[in-house]
Structures are given as structure tokens and as C-alpha cells.
């Protein structure tokens, strides 16, 4: 199909932003449709943010509510912060998709359904007593229906695709229709199909034909009188890529290894939603990267610790249940003072919980989930693309301070995508890391626990270095020599030295910058993946007459030096979190500052309006 053959849509309505959600059965290819739409919008120059949502089941029964998979994309002609609270457009491929998603559509929003799927069986599976396309229940929306299956069948009939496979292309029909409606360039999608399946493969042909049919259906059908235009965003000039948090993390780790001039070693055991970091890095063998799929999480962190001892930039990736298993080894890494990055892509807990859903509830475990006095640095990315920089920062701290570092990402960041302004890789800062190769002791001996005066870090002398033979281990170490020591005073000294080393990192991280108007009385403090929604919520609150300030923490331990001052500069402090108040309790304990909290534990990210509402409620609350 050539773009030219499609007649141009009618004069479009201009919009500065639109949120579109594709929803269907897990088998309907909604993630693919969403991703393709996203990529073409990115290429077109919109700013965007996405939010894929999968069922927890491998494959829940077809047509069931549990089996619904959705992909939301927010496109705009300006710099956006979230994937959008509510959808302006919902594509619903079956009744279950409609049922579970309709509540998130803005009043008056557009709902496009695949009417062929609204048969009795599917309606029953979704728990509809009457057909919502026929009753009044959708009267608050702008409903459009298309016989997507019928039209797809017709479109693909000469492509060589047969039987059950025919209907697999119906997502491309939907994609074609939506592409038409939003005036998207079609070339990137068609190119992708050809590259993916091979130009002449029947599947490629079927998808292209279905896409074309969808596009034309919009163009020619009276009902679809209306198209939209969302102009390219005025993003800072530069090159962009659309990346998810897990990709950004993977690349950030590779970049960190390069910056440190070290080899990257990733020991890991698959677990949702962290697995794709391992999968991504496993593809990068040409960077000299070593990945090891271990027998379990304990071995995953164990091999990494061994690699760290031997001089690699060592990383282990997991989610909450895996962190629990790794904590004993993490404690050994802390005692042996070896660099190690532990990535926890948080999911909803406790126990197996809701493995595919987001939560920020591992913060306390990251800070305190080890026996003994075992403080560690903890940092968290604010958005998918921020994960790149945060991965580098985690590695920087680990290597400079010879310590394990915990990086807290989450299931939302893991899979959501946004445009990332690609840095100039050659200009990225180099880490000034070098192994110790010469004795550092007074008598020409080697003191593996003599500390760097500035950082408190001990030297990194790797096996194979002549003359620096030494032993590390989990028993308390004597200062300087690193020999086993049962001396009471030494234990206290070392406990405090380890703590001081971590606390001292506060001098090596930027002070916080508050965003917001000078007359703000309320300060909102956030961390991690809630950044976008909180930022948007704060901006809205300010617009709606409640001037509000916002500060977002990348570093959770140690906390930035100026946090206390900032906290004390406002009348009220609000800490919104996807947990029951973990950062709030840290702040209360550290500074004795009262906090209001907004907590959500539903396996779902905040919506900006939830933040706005809470802020406005607080101003009305006399206390």
C-alpha cells in the first residue's frame, strides 16, 4: 500500500492533546496496535507517554474480564507529564474490553467498538445483561461502531492467510481507522510490518490490507465525519527515541559500564516485571556484557557479587520477592564493601500479590530490610527515560563508595514508554574508577579496609593483582587490615564508619529544586514513578487557585541536604504514594515534620486529578 492511494481526510479538528486507549482480549494484539500508534506518533513529533496494562494470567479465557489487555497512549503538542488520567478515545475490541475500560473515558469521549464481537456469548462472558451498543448506557459518549471482523476478513482474503489467522489482523484494521482519524503518517507502520514479517509474507500482506481497509473505512464512511490533528510538540531540539523504563535501565547500565571503563555483569533470575531488563541486556553481548540466568535470586546476586570481587560492574535485577531472597547476600556485599547495583522493579505485594501491577511499597524494605545495622543508598527514577540517568547514577555511587546501591523502579515505569532525548554518549561523564594495584600500607603492605579520606570507600584490589592478596568476608572486619575482629570497639567503629560513608553521599548529590510558585503554602513531596501525575496534579491545583510547590526525590537514602529546609518552608506537606505512607514515615522520623498523605494501593498509578483534588481538599481542611 502506498500512502498516496489513500485520499486525504476531511479538514481535521485541532487538539493540543489526546489520550487514546486500545483495549481488547489478550489475543487481540492491542499492545502491538498501541505500540505502533505510539511509534508513528513519535516519528511525527508528538510528545507522548504510554501505559500498557496486561492481565496477570498467561492467557485468561478468551473474552473474559480477566483477559482484557489495554494500551493507553497520550499524545500532545507540548511537553506532557502523564499517560493521561482519562481516555478521549477508547477502542474496544469486545464487550469485556468495553466493560472494564468505559469508566475511564471522559464524558462525551469517543468510543469505537468492534461491533462483530458483541454477540451473545461475549456479552455474557463480560457480564452484560443487555447489549450496551443497543441500550442507553453509552449515551454520555460518542459511540462509533465498525464491523471490524467482517471487513478484515474481506480485506485479507487474497493475501494467503487462512483460517483462524485471518482475524488476527483485525488490530491492524483498528489501527488503520485510528491512524486515519488522527491523521498519522502511515509509512512508519507499513515499513515496520514489512521489516517484521518480510515484505511478501502472507501475514505482512494481511496486516497491510487490514490497515488499509481500516484507514479507508474512516475515509469513506459517512459516520466517521471527523478527524483530529495533534501537532508536533515543541520539544527541545535533538534526537529522540521512545523508550520504556526497563529499556532505559538496561541501556543506562551499559552506558555506566562504558563510563567506568568496566565490563558489565548481570546475574539475574527472571521475575515479572523485571525480566525484560535481563532479556534486553542478554542481546548486547557485542558490548562484552555478561549475563547469567541463575538458578534462583540468591545465586543471581551471588554470581554478581563474585563478579564485583573480580572487578566487574556487577548488577542484579529483580522484583520484591526476589529482593527478600537477596537480602542476606546484599548484606555480605555491604560488609565486604563491594560495588553492586540491585534493581528492584517493584510490583504490588505482599507475597505474590498482583505481579503485573504497580506499587511503591518496597521502599521500607529497601531502607531497612536487612539484619543488623545495614544502611545502603537507595535511588529511584521518576519516569521511563529518567531510568537511564538513574541507572548511571546508581553505578556511579556504587563504584565511588564501594557499596551496594538499591535502585527502585516499578512495574509502571518498566513497561511505559516516553520520548527520550538521546544524550550525546561521547559527552557523558566518565567515572573515575581504577583498581588499586599498589600497596597502601605503611610498611608496603596492603590494607584492604583503609578508607579514602574523602569518600570513606575502601580500595578495590582485584584477584590477579600481584602483591595485594587479601581475604574479605562476612565476619566483622578490623579497620584497615580487614582481618576478622571480635573487638567490641572495632565493631562500633566499623558500624559507624559504614553508616558515615553512606550518609556522606549526601554531599555528593545535587540539592533539591522546588518547582512551583513562590506563594505556595503547600508542598508536595513525591518519589519514583508518580512524578508525572504529581507534577501535573500540582500544576492543575495551582491553576485552579491553590498555589502549590512540588519537590521530587531521586535520592531516598541519604536524603538531600536541603530537604529539611524545604519541608520547613511550607505550612503543609503532602506526600502522595502508591503505598500506605512509607516515604511519609521516613520524613516524619528524620525531621519530625507532620505530613499529610495520599495513598493508593490499587495496583494502578495515580491520576493527576486525584492529586489536584487532595491538594484542594487540604486547603479546605482548617487543620
Amino acid at each position, binding site marked *: 500500500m502506498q500512502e498516496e492511494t489513500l485520499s486525504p481526510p476531511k479538514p481535521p479538528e485541532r487538539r493540543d492533546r489526546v489520550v487514546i486507549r486500545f483495549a481488547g482480549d489478550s489475543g487481540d494484539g492491542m499492545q502491538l496496535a498501541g505500540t505502533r500508534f505510539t511509534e508513528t506518533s513519535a516519528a511525527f513529533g508528538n510528545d507522548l507517554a504510554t501505559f500498557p496494562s496486561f492481565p496477570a494470567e498467561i492467557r485468561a479465557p478468551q473474552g473474559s474480564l480477566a483477559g482484557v489487555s489495554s494500551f493507553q497512549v497520550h499524545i500532545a503538542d507540548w511537553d506532557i507529564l502523564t499517560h493521561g488520567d482519562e481516555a478521549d478515545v477508547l477502542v474496544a475490541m469486545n464487550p469485556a474490553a468495553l466493560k472494564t475500560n468505559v469508566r475511564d473515558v471522559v464524558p462525551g469521549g469517543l468510543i469505537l467498538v468492534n461491533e462483530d464481537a458483541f454477540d451473545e456469548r461475549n456479552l455474557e462472558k463480560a457480564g452484560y445483561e443487555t447489549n450496551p451498543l443497543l441500550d442507553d448506557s453509552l449515551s454520555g459518549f460518542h459511540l462509533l461502531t465498525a464491523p471490524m471482523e467482517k471487513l478484515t476478513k474481506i480485506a485479507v482474503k487474497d493475501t494467503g492467510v487462512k483460517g483462524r489467522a485471518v482475524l488476527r489482523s483485525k488490530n491492524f484494521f483498528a489501527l488503520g481507522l485510528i491512524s486515519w482519524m488522527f491523521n498519522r503518517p502511515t509509512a512508519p507502520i507499513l515499513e515496520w510490518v514489512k521489516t517484521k514479517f518480510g515484505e511478501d509474507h502472507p501475514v505482512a500482506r494481511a496486516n497491510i490490507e487490514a490497515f488499509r481497509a481500516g484507514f479507508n473505512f474512516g475515509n469513506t464512511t459517512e459516520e466517521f465525519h471527523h478527524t483530529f490533528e495533534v501537532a508536533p510538540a515543541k520539544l527541545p531540539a535533538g534526537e529522540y527515541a521512545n523508550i520504556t523504563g526497563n529499556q532505559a535501565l538496561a541501556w543506562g547500565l551499559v552506558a555506566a559500564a562504558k563510563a567506568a571503563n568496566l565490563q558489565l555483569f548481570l546475574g539475574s533470575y527472571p521475575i515479572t516485571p523485571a525480566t525484560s531488563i535481563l532479556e534486553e541486556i542478554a542481546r548486547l*553481548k557485542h558490548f562484552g556484557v555478561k549475563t547469567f540466568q541463575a538458578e534462583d535470586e540468591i545465586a543471581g546476586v551471588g554470581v554478581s557479587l563474585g563478579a564485583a570481587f573480580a572487578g566487574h560492574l556487577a548488577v542484579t535485577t529483580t522484583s520484591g520477592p526476589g529482593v527478600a531472597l537477596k537480602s542476606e547476600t546484599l548484606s555480605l556485599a555491604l560488609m565486604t564493601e563491594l560495588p553492586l547495583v540491585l534493581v528492584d522493579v517493584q510490583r504490588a505485594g505482599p507475597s505474590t500479590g498482583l505481579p503485573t501491577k504497580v506499587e511503591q511499597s518496597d521502599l521500607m524494605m529497601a531502607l531497612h530490610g536487612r539484619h543488623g545495622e545495614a544502611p545502603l543508598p537507595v535511588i529511584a527514577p521518576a519516569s521511563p527515560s529518567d531510568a537511564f540517568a538513574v541507572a548511571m547514577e546508581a553505578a556511579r555511587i556504587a563504584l565511588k563508595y564501594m557499596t551496594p546501591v538499591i535502585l527502585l523502579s516499578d512495574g509502571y515505569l518498566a513497561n511505559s514508554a516516553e520520548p527520550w532525548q538521546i544524550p550525546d554518549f561521547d559527552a557523558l561523564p566518565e567515572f573515575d574508577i581504577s583498581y588499586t594495584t599498589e600497596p597502601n600500607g605503611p610498611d608496603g603492605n596492603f590494607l584492604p579496609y583503609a578508607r579514602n579520606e574523602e569518600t570513606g570507600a575502601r580500595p578495590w584490589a582485584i584477584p590477579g593483582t600481584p602483591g595485594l592478596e587479601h581475604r574479605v568476608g562476612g565476619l566483622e572486619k578490623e579497620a584497615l587490615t580487614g582481618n576478622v575482629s571480635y573487638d567490641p570497639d572495632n565493631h562500633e567503629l566499623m558500624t559507624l564508619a559504614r553508616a558515615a560513608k553512606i550518609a556522606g553521599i549526601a554531599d555528593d548529590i545535587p540539592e533539591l529544586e522546588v518547582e512551583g510558585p513562590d506563594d505556595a503554602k503547600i508542598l508536595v513531596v513525591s518519589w519514583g514513578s508518580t512524578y508525572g501525575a504529581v507534577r501535573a496534579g500540582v500544576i492543575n491545583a495551582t491553576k485552579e487557585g491553590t498555589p502549590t510547590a512540588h519537590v521530587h526525590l531521586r535520592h531516598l537514602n541519604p536524603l538531600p541536604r536541603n530537604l529539611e529546609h524545604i519541608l520547613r518552608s511550607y505550612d503543609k506537606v503532602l506526600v502522595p504514594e502508591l503505598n500506605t505512607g512509607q516515604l511519609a514515615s521516613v520524613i516524619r522520623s528524620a525531621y519530625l515534620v507532620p505530613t499529610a498523605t495520599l495513598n493508593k494501593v490499587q495496583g494502578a498509578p495515580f491520576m493527576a486529578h486525584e492529586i489536584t483534588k487532595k491538594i484542594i481538599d487540604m486547603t479546605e481542611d482548617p487543620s
Partner: protein
Amino acid sequence: MTTETRYSRADFQSGQEVKWCPGCGDYTILASVQNFLAELDVDREKHVFVSGIGCASRFPYYMNTYGMHSIHGRAPAIATGVALANPDLTVWVITGDGDGLSIGGNHLIHALRRNVDLKILLFNNQIYGLTKGQYSPTSELGKRTKTSPAGSVDHPFNPVSLALGTEATFVARTIDMDRPHTTDMLRAAYGHKGTAFIEIYQNCNVFNDKAFQILTGRQERDANRIYLEAGKPIVFGADNEMGVTVGLDGAKIVKVAEVGMDAIAVHDPAKPNPGVAFLLSRLSHGPTGPTPIGIFRQVQRQTYGDLMMGQIEEAKERNANASISDLVSQHGTWKVE
């Protein structure tokens, strides 16, 4: 070409005071290892000893090499990381019957199947020494200890059988008190490319004294030590009057005179099929009668590390000068002017 005089045992002593109970078999093994390394004449800094927790696991502190006294049971995993990070090193794992077979069982069997280049020495004293005498996964059924006052009800592992079940490429057994044999096993393990597993019977004279008496006692040892030597018939006894036959009903102890020398099995640890090795491992279940000592199995299989490095080299060749920019641009990018 070796410089005969480069190292002596003292070069491998770390200067840390050795803190095992007087009379402990661990001293003997330490001496055997130190002497062997001195004789081996490989740069001292190329050796890394990784251990878990237990009396045996104190070992690295006493070696003037690189070392890590890690946490309970995890040494095979940590050592795997060291070995994969730097293939130039010789990585030794020191573990105990509790450390290696109880809490660490999983890492051990996975290391063995993967054939990572590790030398694993399992000091089997059939007891938890460091925690002061509880039964271990190799303690005999009915053993009375503080946690089994009425006798243990746990059927023990035979570490050699277990290792063969994982398809380990090198499986051997030796005895602390038999220093020449220990040295032979160390040498063979050192020379083996892949995971080498040596079970070392080790006397804990405080909590499980004389567990190996029949193999170490002056009176008993000749009648009970069955040395396995490649290419030789398996005979033993003061005058080699006893022998071992191997058949489908198992390996059996026989009088050579009664069956004739031809009926005696000739040992071949290099057999690709581990079946005979397995049959030999069943000859004794713990040191309660004549017990085979030596290399049960030694075969070649590509190591995990070589395969891993091979893939990396190949990928590098295919993508010479790969840069992160390339990586990102392959993924699809766009420009904003």
C-alpha cells in the same frame, strides 16, 4: 618449565592464626593444599578461595591468596561469578557437608551441571562443626546429636552419587589423613577443565570423632580403602587380596582368589556414560565398610565459561565497534529540529 624454588608452603600461609580445634582434620587438608600450590608454581595472585560458613569455610583466611569467606551455602554461586568474570583465575570452592549439601545444595548441583571452571572441595565430617554438633545431610541414619537426641531420621546423601546424578564432569573422593592421595586429587582437579568436585572425608575430633576410623585407623584402613586408579583393576587389602566386580546388580566386594583377576573391574573414569561410576558410588553408603577413594569420573565437556565467552567474542566480531548510539538508533529514533 617450573622454577623449583619459587614458592614454599610458607608463601601460601596468610599469617592469620589458624583457629581450628587442635587435632582437627582441617589442618591436614590445609597443609596438603598449601603444599600442592607451592609445588604447582602458579602465580599466587591467580588463586581465589571462596567458601561459605562452617569450620571448613574458615579456610580462605589461612591462605595467602585472594579469598572470600562468604555466607552459608552460597560459595558455588559467588565463585561462579569470580570464574566467569576472570577466566585467568583458578577458583577454589571450600565447603562443608552442611554448607555444600544442606543450605547450599542447589547452588552445588547447578554448578556441577553447568560445568563452570571451579575446583570444589567438600570437607565432609558428617556433622555441623561450627554450630557445635548437629547432624548433617551426610550423617548416618540414627545418629544421636543435640538436635536428634533419639537418632536422626534423615536418610543421608551419598555426595558422589548425587554429583553423578547431576552429570558432573569430575567427581572424586579422598581422605584428610591420606596426604599423598589428597595431593593427587588436587592435581587432577586442577588439571581438569570444568567443575571438579572432591569429597574429602574429614575428621571432626570434637563433635564426630572417628567417623572415618575404618579408613584411617592403622588396623582398619588397609582392609577398607579401595583406591580407584585409571586403567588398573580395582583391588585392595593389605596384599591386594580383595577386589571389586561391577555388574548390573551393583559393584561387589570379592576375594580375588575366588573370582580370578579377570573378573575384577578395571577402572575407567573417562567412560562417557556415568553408569559404572554410579555403581561404584553405591558400593558404600558412608564410610561403614570398604569404600572407594579416588576419581570416579572424569570426562571432558565444554565449560560454561568457554561457551559464554565464545558467544561474546562472536557477537563482538559480528558487531565490531558497537556503540551505545548504534544501539539506540537501531531501536528507532527521530529528530526534533
